[in-house]
């Protein structure tokens, strides 16, 4: 049996806070981070609904002015990675360790090129300027060494990053591994989703715009943020008496093989991803204490996931609590899976279920689920399942388990 891999550090930058305590307080209070924000489009500021990170903390040891001058995506990723390393007690104590890094990235270079273009540059037309990837940059700035990779599965990127990092730790490729993802709000991406008619147009009521599973939903709210975790083997964590947030107990992944954008009508592939994660964790569905759904607040996506959940949980569907924290954070796109893994840690640590806010009238097609509407509630949560699905037909599920 492979050795357990634990999460022993985390760094956050989310619309609901940059510490686990802040995230927990806001999620469990049912606070919405979605509001009116403005996209710069040339000389115009265009209002839209979004969920923004208002402040990215300067990591310990970095000069504030130089940090502020970095592209925003680099700030976000570096702050989260440094935060995770510091939280694990390894920021100044990693010289003898091989520290791997796996960062989930949906469109790193598009973000880079667009951010540059917004400042008047034309880096996209000068390939010689594209010299260093985000993950390599983070590695160098942290002064660590070990295997690195960027991994992209659209909105499922963070789950892949955590899964690959767990493999690297188990294989002994690295001693510890930073894994997670970061995303910035990018007007081009927002325009893309707007033109797909995937975004909520509830401009007059932005805090109630993200309403997964609700009958009156009209699309998702794009957010930004990041979460990076430090993964290490249980034996390593015990040796140095590290605090363990959770065990990365299971991962499953499949593809719809159906459409580049639209989730498959066939729930079997998504269900298979969940079953794979449960099998990997050697746990039965009835022992899952909380499901953090992908549910973005689109009709087609929410219904497809509800069908898949029913396939997996069968008679336990009505008793297995399910919520979508995207109702509060918005949809963090490439960073969604990682931030939702943090939400699962909140559930495990606080023994409480984060709610789906704005769930006034559940869509009848999602009605059999055991929703947690409006308010958090206390519950025994030993093990969580977090679904993240993405463009390209990617389905992923991640099981986190309380460390005994």
């Amino acid at each position: 049996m492979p050795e357990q891999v634990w999460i022993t550090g985390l760094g956050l930058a989310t619309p609901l806070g940059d510490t686990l305590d802040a995230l927990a307080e806001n999620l469990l209070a049912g606070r919405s981070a979605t509001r009116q924000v403005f996209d710069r489009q040339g000389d115009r500021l265009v209002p839209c609904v979004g969920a923004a990170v208002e402040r990215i903390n300067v990591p310990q040891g970095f000069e504030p002015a130089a940090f502020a001058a970095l592209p925003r995506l680099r700030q976000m990723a570096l702050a989260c990675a440094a935060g995770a390393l510091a939280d694990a007690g390894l920021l100044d104590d990693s010289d003898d360790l091989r520290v791997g890094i796996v960062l989930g990235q949906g469109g790193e270079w598009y973000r880079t090129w667009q951010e540059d273009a917004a400042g008047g540059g034309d880096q996209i037309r000068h390939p010689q300027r594209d010299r260093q990837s985000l993950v390599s940059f983070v590695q160098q700035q942290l002064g660590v060494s070990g295997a690195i990779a960027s991994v992209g599965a659209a909105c499922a990127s963070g789950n892949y990053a955590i899964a690959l990092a767990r493999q690297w730790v188990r294989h002994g490729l690295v001693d510890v591994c930073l894994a997670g993802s970061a995303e910035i709000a990018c007007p081009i991406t927002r325009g893309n989703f707007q033109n797909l008619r995937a975004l909520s147009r509830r401009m007059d009521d932005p805090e109630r715009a993200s309403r997964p599973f609700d009958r009156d939903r009209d699309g998702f709210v794009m957010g930004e943020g990041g979460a990076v975790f430090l993964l290490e083997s249980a034996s390593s964590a015990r040796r140095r008496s590290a605090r363990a947030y959770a065990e990365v107990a299971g991962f499953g992944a499949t593809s719809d093989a159906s459409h580049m954008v639209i989730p498959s009508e066939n729930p079997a592939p998504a269900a298979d991803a969940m079953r794979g994660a449960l099998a990997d964790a050697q746990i039965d569905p009835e022992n899952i204490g909380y499901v953090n759904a992908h549910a973005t607040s689109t009709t087609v996506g929410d219904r497809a996931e509800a069908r898949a959940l029913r396939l997996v949980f069968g008679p336990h569907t009505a008793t297995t609590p399910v919520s979508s924290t995207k109702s509060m954070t918005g949809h963090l796109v490439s960073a969604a899976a990682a931030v939702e893994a943090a939400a699962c840690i909140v559930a495990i640590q606080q023994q409480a279920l984060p709610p789906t806010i704005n769930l006034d009238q559940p869509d009848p097609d999602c009605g059999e689920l055991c929703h947690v509407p409006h308010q958090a509630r206390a519950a025994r949560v030993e093990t969580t399942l977090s679904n993240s699905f993405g463009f390209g037909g990617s389905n992923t599920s991640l099981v986190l388990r309380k460390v005994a």
Partner: protein
Amino acid sequence: MSTPSPDSPLEAAIVAVGTAAFAQGEFVALRKTPPAFPGVELAGHFLKHADEQTIVALEAVRRAAERFELDTRDHERWAIVAAPKFVGRLAGVQILERFAKSGGSGVPPHAVAQNSLHSVSGAVSIALGIHGPNVGLGGGPWAMADGLTAALTLFDTARIPGIWLLLTQFDPEPTPDEQGRPLAGTTCHAVALALMPGAAGNSRLSLYPGSAGRELSRDKPTLDKPTLDKRPEPSVAEVAACVESAERGLATRWSCWLPWGGRIELRLAAAEQTLRRAA
């Protein structure tokens, strides 16, 4: 599960290989005729907005499957690991231009789906009808290293029986004009490797973890002046040349150091019969 060491690297058997390379001018025709794979009916417009690296990757898979007589219907649970480099640069010039002129309403709705890191693997999973995981790796400098490393370390992630590893890039990386057309000639290359767990046969992909690579980051860079890796970055064309040597009857070996201190080695037997036996 074994811990890799210099003596016992992480390995996978190579059961099929294929290459493809197209000049920019060839893509207009290629977009109109998606390759056919058994059991899958693709719409005629499937590749209309696809990135060039998606198109060349699909052709490399088709050639590998045909040459090694693989029926991709048997690969339903396989994974697709695609390591493209700078996906969407050419299309991106036009997208940025349209955004500058028209704002968000000018952004084509297929931009994210077709020009992101996941786009190659996602499209190939659809074209082959594969329901195993699909994921993109790399995307920028040293993308191929990310893909090779991940392919060798993903195998027991989700009980995967095999992996199509797809390495793609333009060579040279195109410098686009204002309409997104390359200013000089460039070729889009792809290598498709069909991998299975273990190291049966004489054709294999190996990962030697090596040292930590500590020496690479000893001098802490500043935020505004990062230290760039000095090691020469390998290209997909190099790997393709190795594959083509094997196809001509020469046993070949290719290896490269990874930026973090590990080493990848690709060994290809001369006779394709050897590859078939591994399958």
